[in-house]
C-alpha cells in the first residue's frame, strides 16, 4: 500500500489503466494467443485428436507443398480475392454514389441493400444453390428454358462453379460495403463541392479529384476488410457444395475448406495446423502489402 501511495498521479493512472486492461489482456492471451501458438507447434506434429502428439519436423509442410490439391486450392483462394474484392468494391461504390443522391424512399432502399448482410450466410447459400440448379427446380435455368435457351451448368461445371459461388458471396457482402461508402461520402465537407461548382468543374473531375481522394481511408478499410473476408471464404462454398465440398474436382475449394476437411474429416490435426499457418501467413502478407500500398504517401 505504501508503494502505491508513493506513486505520482500519472503513475497511479498507469497502474489503474493496467488493472482495467488486465481482463482483456488475459482474455486475449488465453483465448487467442495461446491457441495460435499451439497451432504453430502442432504444425510440426502428427496428431489424430486421440492419443499422443508426435513430432515430425517439417514433414507436414513438405507434404503440403508437394500436394497438387493444395496448389489448386491456393489458386482458388487468390481467385476469390482477385475477382471478389475489386468487383464488390466497384459495385458497392457505384450503388453508394447514386444512392447518396436519391431522396425518394432513401431509407427503404438503403435498408433493402443492407438486408442480405443481416441474413444468415447458410440460408442465403442454400437459396442461391437452388437458384443454380438445372431444370426442374432451378430458377435461372427454368427462366432460360422458358425462352428455349439451353441450360447453363452453374455449380456442376469446373469453370462456372467458382464465379457462381463468388456471385453469392459478393451479393452478401454488398450491403455492408454500401453503408460504409455512404458514411464516407457523407463525411466529405459540402464546401468542397460548392467550391467546385462555382469553378464550373465537370462531374467527372469532381469525382476523380474530390470524392475518391477524400474517400481513401474508407477505401483502404474496405479493401483490407473484404480481402480478408474473401481469403477466408468458407460458408458460401461449403453450403453450396455440401455434397462434394469444394467440388466439382476441387474447382471451388478455398484454403479454409481444405483445412476443415483435413482436420475434421481426416482427423489429421498436424497437417491441418500446417495449412492454417500457411493461411495465417498469406493473410498477414496480403494485409501488410495493402496497407503499405494504400497508405498516404
Amino acid at each position, binding site marked *: 500500500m505504501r508503494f502505491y501511495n508513493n506513486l505520482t498521479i500519472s503513475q497511479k493512472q498507469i497502474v489503474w489503466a493496467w488493472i482495467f486492461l488486465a481482463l482483456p489482456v488475459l482474455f486475449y492471451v488465453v483465448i487467442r494467443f495461446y491457441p495460435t501458438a499451439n497451432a504453430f507447434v502442432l504444425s510440426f506434429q502428427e496428431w*489424430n*485428436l*486421440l*492419443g499422443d502428439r508426435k513430432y515430425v519436423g517439417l514433414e507436414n509442410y513438405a507434404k503440403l507443398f508437394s500436394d497438387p490439391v493444395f496448389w489448386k486450392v491456393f489458386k482458388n483462394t487468390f481467385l476469390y480475392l482477385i475477382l471478389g474484392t475489386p468487383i464488390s468494391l466497384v459495385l458497392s461504390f457505384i450503388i453508394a454514389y447514386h444512392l447518396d443522391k436519391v431522396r425518394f424512399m432513401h431509407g427503404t432502399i438503403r435498408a433493402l441493400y443492407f438486408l442480405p448482410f443481416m441474413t444468415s450466410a447458410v440460408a442465403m447459400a442454400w437459396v442461391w*444453390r*437452388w437458384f443454380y*440448379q*438445372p*431444370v*426442374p*427446380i432451378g430458377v435461372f435455368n427454368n427462366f432460360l*428454358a422458358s425462352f*428455349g435457351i*439451353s*441450360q447453363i451448368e452453374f455449380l*456442376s*461445371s*469446373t469453370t462456372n462453379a467458382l464465379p457462381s459461388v463468388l456471385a453469392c458471396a459478393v451479393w452478401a457482402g454488398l450491403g455492408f460495403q454500401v453503408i460504409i461508402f455512404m458514411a464516407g461520402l457523407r463525411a466529405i465537407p459540402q464546401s468542397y463541392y460548392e467550391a467546385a461548382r462555382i469553378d464550373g468543374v465537370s462531374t467527372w473531375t469532381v469525382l476523380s479529384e474530390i470524392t475518391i481522394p477524400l474517400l481513401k481511408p474508407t477505401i483502404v478499410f474496405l479493401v483490407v476488410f473484404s480481402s480478408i473476408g474473401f481469403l477466408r471464404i468458407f460458408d458460401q462454398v461449403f453450403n453450396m457444395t455440401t*455434397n*462434394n465440398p469444394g*467440388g*466439382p*474436382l*476441387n474447382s471451388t475449394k478455398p484454403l479454409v475448406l481444405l483445412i476443415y*476437411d483435413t482436420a*475434421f*474429416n*481426416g*482427423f489429421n490435426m498436424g497437417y491441418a495446423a500446417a495449412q492454417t499457418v500457411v493461411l495465417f501467413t498469406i493473410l498477414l502478407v496480403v494485409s501488410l502489402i495493402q496497407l503499405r500500398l494504400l497508405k498516404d504517401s
Partner: protein
Amino acid sequence: MKLNRLRTFMLGAATAAMTMAAGAGGASAVEIEYWQYFFEARVDAMDKLIENFEAANPDITVKMTHFPYDSYRTKVAAAIPAGQGPDVVQLFYGWLNDYVEAELIQPLPADTFPPEKIEEEFFPMVKAMRMGDSYWALPTAVRSLALFYNERMFEEAGIENPPANLDELVETAKKLTKKDGAGNLTAVGLTTGMTAQDHHWIREVLIRQFGGEPYLDDYKKVNYNNEAGLKAFGFYNDLQAKHGVTKAAFMDEPQAAFKAGRAGMHIDGSFRIGALESVRGLKWGVAELPAGPDGTKSNYSSYWVNAITSKAEGEKFDAAVKFMEYLTSDEAMQIWLETVGELPAKPSAAMTDENINHPVYGPFIKGLEYAKTTVFANESAQRQAMVDMMQRIELQGQALEESVAQAAEEEQKVLDEYYKK
C-alpha cells in the same frame, strides 16, 4: 462443459451426502456414464434402454451424456485420458483402430463375450470389430442398403415388380425416365450421386457382382483397377452416359428427387426410412438391391458400436460389462429397431417372421445376411476419390480406364498413409 462438471460435482456431492445419511449399511449404488452423439431418436431409444436396464439392475445407475456430432470425438479424446467421461462409449465402426491405438477403450472380457459365441450370434460383418483374440466393441443396430421405389410412378408406367437384377434395373429405369420437349430430364428412372450412397453400392455390391473383390489384404489394398472394377464402373457410368436414365446430382440431392416424386428408384440406407415416412403424398416401397449378372447378391452395412473405455475399473467395469450385455441383447435390438429404425445386429433378433416380412424393414434385413462392411481409413477421402473419378469422366471427358486407374492410385495413397503409422 463447465456446467456439466458443476453438475457432476453437485451430483457427486448429493450422492455422497445420501450415502452418509444411509450409513455404512446397504451396498452403495454404482453409477456408470454412457456417452453418445446427439440424434434425437438415438437418445430416446437409449433413454428407454437405460430405464429397462436400471429396473433389472437396481444397484446400477446409468447416466447418459450426449454431445453434438462435431464435437463428440474431441470430447471423448480429452475426457478419457484424464480419467473423466464415459465408462461405456459409442463410436463409429470406422474409428475402432484409432480408439484402440489411443488406448481409449479396452477389450470386452472373453468370459462374458467369447469371440466364438459372438461370431455365431452376430451378423458376419461384425467381425470387423475383432482385433487379435478379442472383440473390442459391439453394435446394437446396423444399417444396410435397399432399393426404394415410387409406387405411383411404377403404376403409371405399368411396371408390376421392382427389378430383381441389374438388367431389369436398366429396363425399369428407362420406362420411368421422363423428359420435356427440349430433352431436359424432368424425372429420372434411378437416382445417382456418388456423394450419397452410391460409392458404397459400387464398392461392396457392383464390383463383387461383376466378379471382383474391391479390396485385398484387409482393406489395405485397392483392387478395382481390373476387369471386374471396370465393368462395375462402366455399368454405373452407362446409366447416365448411355442409357440416359439418370443424372448425377439431379435435383441437387438424390433423396430430394425421390422425395419430390421425381425419381422412380433410389438406392439408400435404412436410416432414410424415417425421413421418407414423413413425406406427405409419396407412396413408396422397398426391395432388395438388384442381383448381379450371375445372381450374386451383396450389400453394404455400416454401424455404430458400443465399447467399454479404459477408464472403467473395478465395480464400474463390472457394471459396464452388464450394461454392454444388455445393449447387445435381443430385447435392446428390438427397441432400437422400433425407435430409431436401425436393424438388429443379430439374426436371432432380426430374422423374426415379423421383421423379415415387414414391408419396409424386410428387404433391409434380408440384405444383412450377405452384407459386407468396408474398413475405411478415411471415409471422406476414399469417397472423394470415387466422386472425382466420375466427374473426370463426365466433366473432362477422361477415358473410363484412365479415370479408374487414377482413382485407384489416389485411394491407395490414402490407405498407405494411414497404415504406415
